[in-house]
């Protein structure tokens, strides 16, 4: 149980508040459930496997001319994270409340001396730790392959660590949305279906919309940047490139505009956007969940 060892650490500083004990207990249960559950194993395998393929191919390709795979692995991994992590986090969030409600588990849980906020936050904490484990495992396998083949450089090392952190930031936002869906939906299957639909919307439809906007409406680069900053997936991508390459040249005129106009504020804007996506849906979910009569 996570609560016990964690509490031992916490107790060094202060007696844990009862709400923390509750949250950590729910989190621990959620985390253990996740580790046992098939979705976690499946996503971890898929993520690690695809990451392995990407790093192996980039390592092999760059060897031909004696060039290091400058940014190539990273680009592939950014792509992979953009596909897999939102799906993972959205479905994990969607599966957090609604199926428990269906099975009657939620009524049982809420009959204990835990508040609804504690249940929600506990589940959020547990699932986010599970997602962090999954992301780190996937990227860790890539790092291992790069290290073993000798193709890894310190640039790769730094970019993998950045990617891990930023992918986790993206996962927090997506998990938050997923949990909101789960609170609102009455059935587990509805929640999961909605989550997959949202995934499709965020990964493909929003970018297609941007493309249409650029081609048909001749959107200005300021507008494009604002649209990009509102989209957590684009923020993850831009922040990764910015952190790893210290420039956004790769993204053309919008990237150059962003880096030139906000040379210092850009990272803060990225952080604010990701934080908003993590906090706002979760708070809405909490408000809905705590004010609902019955489960």
């Amino acid at each position, binding site marked *: 149980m996570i609560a016990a060892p964690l509490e031992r650490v916490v107790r060094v500083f202060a007696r844990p508040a009862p709400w923390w004990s509750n949250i950590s207990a729910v989190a621990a249960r959620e985390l*253990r459930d996740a*580790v046992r559950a098939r979705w976690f194993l499946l996503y971890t395998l898929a993520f690690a496997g695809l990451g392995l393929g990407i790093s192996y191919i980039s390592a092999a390709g760059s060897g031909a001319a004696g060039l290091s795979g400058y940014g190539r692995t990273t680009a592939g991994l950014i792509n992979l994270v953009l596909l897999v992590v939102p799906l993972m986090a959205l479905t994990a969030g969607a599966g957090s409340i609604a199926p428990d409600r269906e099975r009657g588990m939620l009524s049982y849980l809420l009959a204990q001396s835990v508040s609804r906020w504690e249940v929600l936050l506990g589940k959020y904490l547990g699932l986010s730790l599970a997602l*962090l484990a999954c992301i780190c495992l996937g990227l860790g396998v890539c790092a291992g392959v790069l290290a073993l083949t000798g193709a890894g450089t310190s640039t790769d090392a730094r970019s993998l660590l950045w990617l891990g952190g930023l992918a986790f930031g993206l996962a927090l936002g997506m998990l938050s949305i997923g949990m909101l869906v789960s609170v609102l939906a009455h059935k587990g299957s509805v929640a999961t279906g909605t989550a997959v639909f949202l995934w499709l919307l965020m990964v493909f439809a929003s970018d297609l919309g941007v493309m249409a906007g650029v081609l048909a409406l001749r959107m200005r680069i300021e507008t494009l940047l604002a649209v990009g900053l509102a989209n957590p997936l684009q923020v993850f991508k831009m922040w990764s490139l910015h952190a790893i390459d210290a420039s956004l040249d790769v993204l053309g005129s919008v990237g150059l505009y962003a880096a030139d106009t906000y040379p210092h504020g850009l990272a803060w804007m990225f952080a604010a956007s990701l934080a908003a996506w993590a906090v706002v849906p979760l708070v809405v979910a909490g408000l809905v969940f705590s004010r609902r009569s019955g489960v």
Partner: protein
Amino acid sequence: MNPSRFIMGLLGALVLPCGAPAQPPGAGGVSPLASRIAAAAPGDTIEVGPGTYPGRLVIDKAVRLVARPGPDRPMLDAQGYGDAVEIRAENVELRGFIIERTGSELDGENVGVRVLANGAVIQDNELRDVLFGVDCKAALRCVIRNNVIGAKDLDIARRGDAIRLWRSDGTLIEGNTIRDGRDSILWYSKGVIVRNNLAERCRYGFHLMYSNDVTIEGNTLRANSVGIYFMYSTGVTVRNNIIDRNRGPSGYGIGLKDTDAFVIENNILSGNRVGMYLDNSPVVRTNRVLIARNTIAVNDVGMQFLPSVKGNTLTGNTMLDNFEQISVLGRGDLSDNEFDLDGAGNFWGDYAGYDADHDGVGDTEYESQTLFENLMDREPKLRLLMFSPVQQAIEFVGRALPAIRPEPKFSDLYPLMRPAGATLVAPARAGGGNIWIAAAALLGVPSMIVGFAFADRLLARPAARRNCPAMGGATA
């Protein structure tokens, strides 16, 4: 009196006194070496011992001014005002000095070494805190060799050119190290050889304007805005250069505008925003130009063409891991360029064909025909969506539906199966140990998390079940 002249005069009277900065006391005076030059005969060698020689030095006799060998080099210090050295006589040699602290006036073109006569040799000097470095004006057959040229810490546009030639034919620029300067620029200078120099963190590594028959070889140009840019020049040879990570809004490794009769071979262009950029080059389509055996790798865009470009021949180049291999700005194709010579095409890292007859040449042609790239070339703002999954989705749709498949930009009929371009000693990006640390850290996190989750089970210790029994055991 002409009224406009009157106004100009009035303005001049108002502006001039404040325009020129006040001369600091003692600065801008005559260098103490002037008397030794005055005493020397043409052809003499003047050996200068260590020490600081303040003021401006004018060399108006054909003398060799040489630093005495030793640990301390003599310092020619312009004290932040005007020029440091001016060479007015032919066949002067200036060797082994530290030349520093020129003025900062761009309109005064304050310069480390101004060369106004033929045959000067500027060698083994270190120029630091100078606005312009070496400035040759109508000075033929000079040699600028093994100097280290720095710059002033000013906004890049307010800096001066590290090296500037103006109508200075037959100059040799060799073995210099140029850092942080604005440009190294050749104006109207014929038959110049630029060899084995290093330029980094400049604006333009080398920039040619109307300079014909120039050879640029063995240079390393990295982290500039632009590596080499050619404008209105004919008969240039570029070979064996390493052109790495020139980025930013310009960000060209090699750029050619209205340049003709060029040979670009055996260069390595890596990590640039655009490896090679061609704008109306060659000018005359029948002029034979050659782009051969270059390695163009890991750039954002390997080669970028304006749609009007025709008459290039590409052979034996290695196009590897560029985010976009060939881009045609706007719409158009490159059908008037040759992508092979005598049955030898280029190596394309993304070639998916095969070589059944083992002759080293792929049996199917390499075609660059991707929908997303076409859209990006048409509307560069779409580059924002690079690396998004939608990019692959669009490519997939483009491949699956022939109706919206774009016209190929070009096709290489004889794609090579193996890279033939210049091989690179990988740029030092050391620190392979760090990747092990990253791997350990990344794999450590999940094991810790899982460890925490199952700590109680692993330790087989009955945990104090707080609050609710349901959470402890109901999950199995």
